[in-house]
């Protein structure tokens, strides 16, 4: 299991989702990706993207406009 970080601050949805998707594509099952972003839309879109692609959200917090989402890579495939 490896830990990765993605800085998706100051970009608007769907760009944080696209960056997350592209980062996860290169990871292995069990890896963890911490995404940091500022668009509140990500609070909705990243979990939805994770659910439909079979990944798990381990943690999600919104501290004074800074959003942190930790994803565990599970589903793999196309």
């Amino acid at each position, binding site marked *: 299991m490896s830990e990765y970080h993605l800085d998706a601050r*100051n970009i*608007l*949805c*769907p*760009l944080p989702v*696209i960056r997350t998707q592209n980062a996860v594509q290169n990871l292995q099952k069990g890896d963890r990706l911490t995404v940091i972003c500022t668009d509140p839309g990500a609070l909705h*879109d990243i979990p*939805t993207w994770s659910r*439909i*692609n079979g990944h798990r959200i381990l943690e999600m917090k919104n501290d004074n406009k800074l959003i942190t989402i930790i994803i565990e890579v599970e589903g793999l495939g196309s």
Partner: protein
Amino acid sequence: MASQRKAIALISGGLDSMLAAKVVLEQGIHVEGINFFTGFCVEGHTHAIRKQDKAKPKRNNALWVAEQLGIKLHIVDVIEPYKTVVINPRHGYGANLNPCLDCKSFMVGKAYEWIQQHGFDFIITGEVMGQRPMSQLKHVMPVVQRESGAGDLLVRPLCAKKLPPTLPEREGWLDRGKLFDFSGRSRKPQMALAEKFGITEYAQPAGGCCFLTDAYYAKKLADLWQSRGSRDYELDDIMLLKVGRHLRPRPHFKLIISREEGETNFLEGYRRSFTHLRTLSHGGPLALVDGETSHDDLVLTAQLVARYSQGRDTGQVDVAIHHKNGEIEQISVTPLKPDEIPEDWHI
């Protein structure tokens, strides 16, 4: 047993593409969704920017549709390659700056590249014959097939029966008898099909799927091209066209003035790249100046900004001008009166 066939469905977030994907899923095909982000999409940004829109759901409709259908969704960033479609469309524009026919061929073309890279068999779109936009008229349907390169690997399940059989139909991967022949502007057949599938909630995009169909937006983009003397843009340019009041008092510069707190927060992210103004003595907007300005120009911009501040009815408003080099200049100005702002300054 033959292996399960795989299709990629262009998912816009609206009802038609959702139904098209569902029709094919029902035939036992493995379906995944694909959605292209051009920078002009109505999704996401506007909700994120404007505070008054905060009450509306902030979901991304394409992701939501994929979840309802139980399929994966691939969102592809096409900001760069899409520029040639907008700047120089082979088939021209629709009512505004929407290059719908070129856009459709571009997206199907990208989906075609995708299926080749990922070992998928064919492509699905939610087009309905004879509906707006112009890319859905009968005589242009073959144009998309041809110019995208997808040929008869492109299936339009909602109007397939009005078109020649495609490869997936001829090969028996899809039962043509269970595809549809929808045409015209009526939404009734789609609504009936949605009901049959138990789909009760769906997004109803008004006008089109992107800002290029919006007359006000198109006017601002045309103004941007004209003022720069070239038809080009960066992502930041087209994002800024979605926000604020845009005024061009002189040919060589324009002002972007926030209309509410959400827009002010959004413009804050850009202020370092622009000369910008704020009111000091009264509450007021943040304004970015796009273009090169003289001192007199800046006095005029300050008067305009004062006009949109809470000090608009007072004799004098203090304004701070933040120059790009970091210098801050403070001036006191008389707000312009409404009749001193010609209508044609508004872009």
